[in-house]
């Protein structure tokens, strides 16, 4: 049969997925024989260096900085599940270019992800996850990706890409609820990852997490958790110039995944400290 890559082969990165140009049966086999003697006779294909990278001439350049970016994503666990939150901005540099970009997405009934960083890369990642959940659908055997599996998978993808010096420029939050337990984890563009009861990416790590550390409890009710989330979002919005007052909240519970319509929070810019922000920061202007 046509070599069908194991569903996780996407982890190895671009070029690993076979092209589906109409093959002659002989060509079908040839593909596998092209590899040198060290190619494994079964199992996944070995990782090989992209030949283009070795060709002479100019060094090959990968993404060196992101273009359209999203800012912080926040996530907390609570009594019945997890909450994820982010704004809906796709910023082109410091231009607020796309104001309705949904950065929180459902993966399947037990898992949602949110991403900051390069949004085209996030779209690519979502395509990978969609393929995986489509595969689950097609297998039709009741198995589906668990939140921790999604997290692990993303860790592998991001880490592999960074090892090729072609990173996916994202920090991702994975939230889920499975087997009666909430799951919350994050992974950065170079594959750094951890799980915690509350996580945040980017600026949120500095602006929101202190608040979370202070106020978060795993047994919070949904109302409490939502209130905490709103507070964190507001703080992030006050302090992060690359954000807008248009947020979404994703909730994953035993009932499934719901992602709210975009909403705005009431803000108050009349704080005394806002009046002269440099006053207490000598050396700035």
């Amino acid at each position, binding site marked *: *049969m046509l070599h069908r890559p194991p569903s996780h082969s996407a982890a190895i990165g671009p070029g690993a997925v076979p092209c589906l140009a*109409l093959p002659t049966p002989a060509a079908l086999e040839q593909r596998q024989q092209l590899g040198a003697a060290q190619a494994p006779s079964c199992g996944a294909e070995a990782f090989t260096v992209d030949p283009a990278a070795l060709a002479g001439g100019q060094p090959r350049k990968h993404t060196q900085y992101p273009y359209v970016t999203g800012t912080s994503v926040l996530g907390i666990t609570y009594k019945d599940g997890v909450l994820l939150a982010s704004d809906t901005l796709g910023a082109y540099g410091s231009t607020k270019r796309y104001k309705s970009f949904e950065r929180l997405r459902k993966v399947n009934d037990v898992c949602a992800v949110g991403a900051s960083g390069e949004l085209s890369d996030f779209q690519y990642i979502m395509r990978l996850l969609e393929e995986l959940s489509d*595969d689950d*659908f*097609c297998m039709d055997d009741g198995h589906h990706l668990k939140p921790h599996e999604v997290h692990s998978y993303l860790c592998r993808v991001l880490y592999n890409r960074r090892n090729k010096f072609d990173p996916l420029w994202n920090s991702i939050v994975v939230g889920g609820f499975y087997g009666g337990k909430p799951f919350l984890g994050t992974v950065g563009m170079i594959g750094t990852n951890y799980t915690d009861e509350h996580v945040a990416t980017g600026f949120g790590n500095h602006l929101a997490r202190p608040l979370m550390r202070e106020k978060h409890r795993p047994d919070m009710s949904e109302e409490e958790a939502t209130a905490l989330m709103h507070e964190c979002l507001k703080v992030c919005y006050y302090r992060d110039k690359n954000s807008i007052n248009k947020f979404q909240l994703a909730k994953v519970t035993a009932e499934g995944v719901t992602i709210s319509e975009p909403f705005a929070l009431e803000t108050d810019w009349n704080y005394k400290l806002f009046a002269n922000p440099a006053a207490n920061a000598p050396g700035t202007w």
Partner: protein
Amino acid sequence: MSGIGSGYDLSTSTFSPDGRVFQTDYAQKAVDNSGTVIGIRCKDGVVLGAEKQLISKMLESNSNRRTFPVDRHAGVACAGLAADGRAIVSRAMAEANNYKSFYGDPIPGHVLAERLATYTHLFNMYWSVRPFGVSTLLASYGKEGPHLYLVEPSGTMHRYFGTAVGKGRQGAKNEIEKLKLEEMSCREGITAVAKILHQVHDEEKGFEMELAWICEDSGRQFQRVPQQLAEEAEAAAKAARLENQEQALGKLDTSLAELRQELAAAAAELRQELAEQRKELRQELAEQSKELAEQRKELCQELAEQRKELLAAVAASEARVAAAQKPLVDLVTAAMSALADSNIQPLPHAARQEQEEAEAEACSGSDS
């Protein structure tokens, strides 16, 4: 098939003199021998149904799948070699995935069907491979609405409103033609499919049914028919089958009654005929007996006459004898009287015996 033994039927890369590729036909045979698979396109979706022979009672139920989703909006049912079927499924999944990543849209049914047909056809082109032993029913529900396609081992592809492949295809197709597919919803469709599958399943051996659909009820996603609905459909099918059997039984009963009636009529007729014959015979008999009686009378008369004659003759001869005797008697009488006159006494019997014994004793005494 005339290809057997001719040597023209050993490879897909060989045509027979009359322009056939027998290996392709043989692959089709594998499909024709497998369990029946049915597909119908109803007004709001497509229903696929497969008949699965139970090879062992230790099998888990619902295993040994015959219907497979290949994307959210499309799925297939395979008849023939299950393993070949999965190869097609893998390819279909890859095609669907590829299309989506390239065009960003789900693959339309006709494109998928065409690509599968092309792929299948490839395996009819080279000596180094064999054709798939699988016919694939493809159900899709895209922008163009619900569609049903059939891809055959030869690589031909057609769109159908309803079709069947496998062992019971002929009967199933006949039944499908009777359905009003344009007016039928998928909910009714699953029952219809279940009924047909039960109807064309001829052996007494058990089988498992697998139903899958794609319609509004399933959210335009290809999936197995929910268990409860499937069970209802199966129950209805079994009931229908039972009813059918009962109907057939009823028909038999009526025909039996008719036969009986006919028989009774025939018997009555026969009886009448018999009676008539008997009557005739009796008449004849009577006539004959009458005749006989006459004959007898005649004979009796004759006999009597003859007897009379004979008696007369006897009397005459007696008279003649008496006449002849008379001189003899006279003679004897004369002799007797003469004897009496001469006084000669005949020796009494006892005295004669004594005399004889004495003589015998004398003889034996001399001997001892």
